[in-house]
């Protein structure tokens, strides 16, 4: 039996974080680049990676594939509400440690067989959290605080196998759980619109991406489309992320496929089911990855292999949410 007390993968040192953010560029420069360029430049072996969206909703699939295609090693991962995003990285063999609030599961789509094998074999170092606990770790980091007090996880094995600490409220004496700030080395978020500098709009729910974007040291944005900066000046209330948080902007229409993108297109359920089926054993998984990722040059190649624009048009037609009317 492993001794309780989970490993803390990232330092919650706010002085170190401030020193880093002091040096982060504020330059309003054209940050457009291809996904391979952005990944190569900003993701390094051993980095701790966090992904925006919610597993099968608004995920940066193109960047996830590129990380697998480039055969990164020893990445840490924040498994917050992660389903198909974790599945891609786990199948690609790029991870060696993971904070977990939700991995392996695929919501209504069952469990990932390979994700299970990976954790059950002991190949991944893991630390447990809850969705709120892990989300508030991003919030603490976004606030520049070393931790936030919370009233979750207390009294459970989730707490025992976490890296949180119990503290006492100095005002009332109440027992609380301190969840440490989480500053990911690199975060990747798929958004609806961005300008060439990295100003970004997310439509619909944003899950924990406001906090994640502010907590991350480096931030890569993939977007459905590039729009003029003037649009942000006209509707500043719609800006989710300002450009100075962002290091790279990649225009990838359909970039969340086969996951859904609210207001744009729905998920490709047969493709997601085929992915789970391919995980039944190592041989079939490797053949699947070879075909889908390693022998396709880029995301456009992957999309073309799976029905291309015609398939995307079907998924667009099936999307339940209508894009908001332009205002003003």
């Amino acid at each position: 039996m492993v001794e309780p007390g989970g490993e803390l993968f990232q330092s919650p040192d706010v002085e170190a974080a401030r020193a880093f953010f002091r040096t982060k560029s504020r330059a309003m420069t054209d940050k457009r680049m291809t996904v391979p360029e952005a990944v190569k430049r900003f993701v390094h072996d051993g980095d701790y990676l966090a992904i925006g969206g919610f597993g099968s909703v608004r995920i940066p699939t193109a960047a996830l594939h590129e990380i697998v295609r480039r055969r990164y090693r020893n990445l840490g991962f924040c498994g917050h509400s992660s389903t198909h995003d974790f599945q891609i990285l786990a199948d690609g063999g790029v991870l060696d440690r993971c904070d977990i609030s939700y991995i392996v599961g695929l919501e209504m789509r069952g469990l990932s067989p390979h994700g299970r094998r990976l954790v059950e074999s002991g190949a991944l170092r893991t630390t447990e959290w809850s969705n709120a606990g892990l989300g508030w770790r991003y919030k603490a980091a976004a606030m520049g605080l070393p931790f936030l007090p919370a009233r979750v996880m207390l009294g459970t094995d989730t707490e025992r196998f976490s890296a949180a600490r119990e503290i006492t409220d100095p005002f009332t004496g109440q027992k609380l759980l301190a969840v440490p700030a989480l500053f990911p080395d690199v975060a990747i978020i798929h958004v609806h619109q961005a300008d060439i500098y990295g100003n970004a709009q997310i439509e619909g729910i944003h899950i924990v991406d406001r906090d994640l974007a502010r907590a991350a040291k480096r931030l890569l944005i993939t977007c459905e489309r590039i729009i003029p900066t003037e649009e942000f000046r006209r509707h500043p209330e719609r800006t989710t992320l300002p450009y100075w948080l962002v290091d790279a902007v990649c225009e990838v229409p359909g970039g969340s496929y086969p996951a859904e993108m609210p207001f744009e297109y729905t998920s490709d359920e047969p493709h997601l089911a085929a992915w789970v089926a391919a995980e039944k054993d190592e041989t079939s998984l490797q053949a699947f990855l070879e075909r889908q990722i390693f022998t396709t040059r880029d995301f456009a190649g992957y999309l073309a292999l799976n029905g291309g624009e015609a398939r995307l048009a079907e998924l667009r037609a099936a999307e339940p949410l209508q894009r908001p009317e332009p205002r003003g």
Partner: protein
Amino acid sequence: MPETGRYTLMELMICATAHLLEDGKTALIGTGAPLAAAMLAQKTHALNLIILFEAGAMAPILEKLPISVAGSSTQTHALVHSSMDDIMESCQRGMVDYSFLGGAQIDQFGNLNSTMIGADYARPKVRLPGSGGANDLASLCWQTVTIIPHTRRKFVPRVDFITTPGYLNGPGAREAAGLPANTGPYRVLSTLGIMGFDPASKRMTVLSIHPGVTRQDIIDNTGFEMLFAADLAVTSEPSDAELRILREQVDPTGMVLSKTMKE
């Protein structure tokens, strides 16, 4: 089992869950059976039930059953497209009345395991997803309802891993752990009956048995000593009107209704 031909066990459980939801309350809903129950409640007795999804949708008017708790289908006609932190902070502030959970194992105090099966955390026999939002909701919401198939493999003396807090090891344990006062498991809806928790001992207690199920069925399928209420009832059956709404409006494609509650 109560497969009378008029309704299925899944339909009985969805309707029984819907009956727990009062009008004008807030309910944090996951996908599957609880969502079907919330939609049914909204279309029958609880028109002003405020549905919340953990990823950030607030008070949507649902058109179809969502596959993901963050998907577009959770956001249709919503009053607010917010965020998970806003939802979780609402729970922590005391604004959320109901939440619904599932799990691989449950014990007599309502503790739930959705993390791993086995004795060694580092080498689990079966790795499961982990807490997700379950620990948060069970820690923070006023009334937590668990929906779970009733077998000895699931109703166990000791869960392999306490992912999500029930009454922990008994009376006073939640408060001692620092969890918010007056919270804890409210109901467990199984394939055999509806359970509550004894106010003094916090032990699971059968309140009603589904039609066609016997007391002995429950004893035989429970891995711990189950208590039975003195005024043990029979679970109320779905009305024809409820079944019609459920089949025609809530789940016309059978995404949830076609499933069976099993291991």
